[in-house]
């Protein structure tokens, strides 16, 4: 089914000359690309190309040695995790980073922690403002739970869920923060066809309903070509392709990288 044309806006995130190295290992070399508002931008590339490192740089987990990140007009050399979260950037992780000791509901509620204003003393007394705030945020979280169809497992401890559902809960936690930019690190890894279709549907719904800009890393070419507006291709830490899915599909360097021609 053809997707309706999305209103893609101006550049909201731009990375210039990002270089990241761990000791002698060069994870990223001189990466430059941008992301426009409301679009779905995919980052693809063979294993070890530096895709997760790229997300980590945007996220503030790693600080690049060179280059700048400009998000919504504010230029920084490297971002601090808390500032990033406050700026409305949320993400999911490749190896699920859920809080195993808590239930699904609690995990998603932590996504709202940043928005909670009451002090711990008010929370200890559970009256007035603290109570209202908790219930307000609970209502918002329930919206996300409805959206992702995980009502039936909201009280289950996260460690007991199958892999596919855990990934969905992680997405819920990221969405609970009402982000304007969502970074997804292999959201469909390890899923069967049905689960992938569900996840694709959710990602597209998020983009269309909430207008969230999405940057996603994904290996499944079918998914990437189908849902993304533009694609960046990385290989050995360098950018080797950038454009619409069709443009990238025809790029010789990309074909070489994926077919394993020595380069």
């Amino acid at each position, binding site marked *: 089914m053809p997707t309706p044309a999305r209103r893609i806006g101006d550049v909201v995130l731009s990375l210039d000359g990002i270089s990241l190295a761990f000791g002698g290992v060069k994870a990223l070399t001189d990466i430059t690309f941008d992301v426009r508002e409301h679009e779905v931008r995919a980052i693809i590339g063979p294993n070890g190309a530096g895709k997760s490192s790229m997300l980590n740089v945007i996220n503030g987990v790693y600080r690049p040695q060179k280059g700048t990140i400009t998000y919504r007009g504010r230029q920084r050399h490297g971002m601090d995790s808390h500032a*990033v979260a406050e700026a409305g950037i949320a993400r999911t992780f490749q190896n699920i980073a859920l809080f195993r*000791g808590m239930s699904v509901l*609690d995990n998603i509620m932590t996504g709202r*922690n940043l928005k909670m204003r009451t002090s711990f003393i008010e*929370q200890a007394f559970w009256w007035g403002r603290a109570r209202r705030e908790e219930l307000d945020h609970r209502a918002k979280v329930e919206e996300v739970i409805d959206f992702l169809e995980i009502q039936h497992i909201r009280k289950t401890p996260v460690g007991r869920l199958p892999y596919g559902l855990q990934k969905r809960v992680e997405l819920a936690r990221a969405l609970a923060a009402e982000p304007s930019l969502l970074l997804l690190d292999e959201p469909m890894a390890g899923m069967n066809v049905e689960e992938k279709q569900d996840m694709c549907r959710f990602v597209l719904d998020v983009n269309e309903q909430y207008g969230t800009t999405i940057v996603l890393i994904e290996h499944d070419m079918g998914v990437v070509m189908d849902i993304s507006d533009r694609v960046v291709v990385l290989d050995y830490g360098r950018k080797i392709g950038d454009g619409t899915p069709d443009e990238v599909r025809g790029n010789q360097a990309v074909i070489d990288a994926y077919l394993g021609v020595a380069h």
Partner: protein
Amino acid sequence: MLYREAGQFKVTYAKDQQIFPIRQDRIAVIAVVVFAFVVVPLIANQYWLSAILIPVLIFSLATLGLNILTGYAGQLSLGTAAFMAVGAFAAYNFELRMPALPLPVSFFLAGCCAALVGIVFGLPSLRIKGFYLAVATLAAQFFVVWALVRFPWFSNYSSSGVITAQTMVMFGIPFETPVEKYMITLTIVALLALAAKNLVRSATGRAWMAVRDMDVAAEVIGIRLMRTKLLAFAVSSFYCGIAGALYAYAYLGTVEPEAFTLDLSFRILFMVIIGGMGSILGSFLGAAFIVLMPIVLNVLVHWLNGILQSTFAWSLPGSITSNLELMVFGGLIIFFLIVEPHGLARLWQIGKEKLRLWPFPH
């Protein structure tokens, strides 16, 4: 049959967030609270109050404190006794030097002093984790005890640092008898336990558990690690401080710095482990277990001796009880860690689950 939730639907989030969402639980808890506040003072004798109920309550409070730090926030601490010592001596000094302050205020301030000390010794947690942090808390343990002895001001220049807790007086009424001390202790512990339960269900508690489970992810969603960890240390030490003050005022009467040994810290850690890490109920169960166990053991050995004496005209040597106690403690810790790492609280939960199905097996 008795424990069915059938028909108990929750139509508002507020109802769903209750501490005891199941009606039978609510009834049971109210019954326990009424029993504790009304029935016990009427029927309990002095021994039960002074030697069992009051220490169980006080240690439950200290265990709650340590549970907040280690069970919920994941910061291992071996310095619990030091924070109790701070609370005890701070309360003594407030009562002594500012007698105009009402007793609850003195206790509250004592807790705050302990919280401040807790924050100071919690600062290393910003850079180190796991049992490296435990070693740092050991520094607190030794340093605090040394400081209390070294600066006689704390003990009002008494010899060997011993302090004698003043009589507790509120609204002009002295609280001297075991029953009165029991009521004060019970009230304070009940209120603080309620506060703790509210805290751990709220955003603060979730932040603690997030830091415990995966601090990198917690940071990424915007939780401030420093604030969260230091808050855990502060609240935990506050609770231990109040427990320490009660320890001096409602239980022992006289304390010295050396009474707050590493051994005491370990005992409280055992209460946390056996009761269940990350569980409010577990704190009470663990404390009760550890306080009661030596008594039960004593009775058992006595009884065994009686049989041995009459059958073989031989009885176990006297020293066996204390050594047996050590062995049983150690053995139980290992047993619980292997069999049920989540302690008595989990066993209680499993029991309730079975009760839901009763009389059916599954």
